[in-house]
């Protein structure tokens, strides 16, 4: 009897990895999905914070893909290990702080460990030659296979016929002729394939699968590293970069100003880790202070806090400052003038 071969597919939630998995499933291979949570994934979290988005929670696309395909999906927390990938990428960054090539190598390497532990035979990704400028080029795709250690256990079903045959093809577990030869940036072949399979509501994230390809997000992360004096972060830092207005009046401190109720509630959860402020004489947002502000800086921050509340036109506003231990005091300040210097906004 033939052995039932098993493959794990890297599922990002996008169309390509979905089609790659489907292509291999069609050849009678048992496929399960794997998804790595780096802390920067577009899937999840931001929608949970803002009030307007809470009403219509966004689905998690990798779970949706797995359900459409009828496969299991294993979501793996790689937050800690990923720090080294992002902080010291051997192959550098893409257009922003996205270390795509190192990221792919890291994920394929993790998948290789996973197949060894779980008795699977090979790995599938949805990569297509020439599709992305950094990690999916003709010269970088062999780098992913080699440096991840996956070598010829890594099958890219959407462009396999343009690449050297892998072990699953050579062993006859997979019929190479039924794999694809897509290349370049065109999405047409994938869309036609999706149509054939009847996949309709798939997601097509424009920039890529994570926030690191986003210009504004990367700028905030770069600012954080500069303020800390070194490249490092905790998951909370990563989350807080997505919440509120970030205002840096001086290199050694910044304010995170809640923009609405949902964000305010989210920031409340950080009051033991940050000095916080809020107006008491008028309604206004919760503000966290990150860094090491002097007494004078706190006075300035209180003026900014007052400016974002209903007392912005008032002569004086009372702002309560709460330190990390819960000690409170109140400053009476004049709200800062209407427009803050543009360079303060991160």
């Amino acid at each position, binding site marked *: 009897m033939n052995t039932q071969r098993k493959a794990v597919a890297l599922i990002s939630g996008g169309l390509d990895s979905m089609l790659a998995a489907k292509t291999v499933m069609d050849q009678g291979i048992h496929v399960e999905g794997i998804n790595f*949570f780096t802390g920067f994934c577009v899937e*999840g*979290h931001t929608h949970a*914070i803002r009030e307007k988005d809470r009403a219509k929670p966004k689905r*998690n696309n990798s*779970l949706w893909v797995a359900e459409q395909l009828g496969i299991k999906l294993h979501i793996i927390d790689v937050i800690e290990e990923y720090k080294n990938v992002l902080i010291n990428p051997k192959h550098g960054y893409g257009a922003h702080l996205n270390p795509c090539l190192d990221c792919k190598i890291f994920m394929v390497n993790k998948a290789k460990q996973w197949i060894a532990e779980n008795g699977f035979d090979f790995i599938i990704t949805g990569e297509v030659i020439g599709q992305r400028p950094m990690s999916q080029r003709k010269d970088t795709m062999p780098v992913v296979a080699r440096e991840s250690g996956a070598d010829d256990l890594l099958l890219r079903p959407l462009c396999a016929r343009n690449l050297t045959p892998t072990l699953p093809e050579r062993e006859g577990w997979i019929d190479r002729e039924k794999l694809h030869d897509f290349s370049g940036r065109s999405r047409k072949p994938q869309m036609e394939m999706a149509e054939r399979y009847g996949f309709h509501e798939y997601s097509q994230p424009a920039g890529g699968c994570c926030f690191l390809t986003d210009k504004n997000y990367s700028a905030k992360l770069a600012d954080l590293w500069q303020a800390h004096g070194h490249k490092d972060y905790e998951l909370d830092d990563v989350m807080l970069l997505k919440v509120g207005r970030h205002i840096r009046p001086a290199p050694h401190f910044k304010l995170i100003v809640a923009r609405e109720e949902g964000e305010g509630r989210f920031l409340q959860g950080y009051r033991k880790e940050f000095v916080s402020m809020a107006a008491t004489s008028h309604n206004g947002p919760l503000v966290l202070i990150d860094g090491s502000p002097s007494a004078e800086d706190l006075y300035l921050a209180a003026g900014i806090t007052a400016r974002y509340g209903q007392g912005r036109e008032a002569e004086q506003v009372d702002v309560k400052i709460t330190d990390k231990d819960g000690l409170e005091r109140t400053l009476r300040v004049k709200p800062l003038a209407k427009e803050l210097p543009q360079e303060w906004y991160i």
Partner: protein
Amino acid sequence: MNREILNARRLLCPLPVIRTQNKIKEMRPGAHLEVICTDPGVMQDIPAWCRIHGHTVLETHSGNHEYVILIEVGGQNG
């Protein structure tokens, strides 16, 4: 009935799903897990994860900015 509680408050998706997945791995078929969260996204994501893996959502409710999901571990746990 053997019921365990998982506190996933303040975690944002997909972390509550990951914690649920890892907890259920240690549980026996038929056991119950109550997951308490503050991210409303779990109301979609945890049931979707359960459907894929053959576990049953017995009950969901929410109130006071908390979302609670009661899961029965499926027979093919693993």
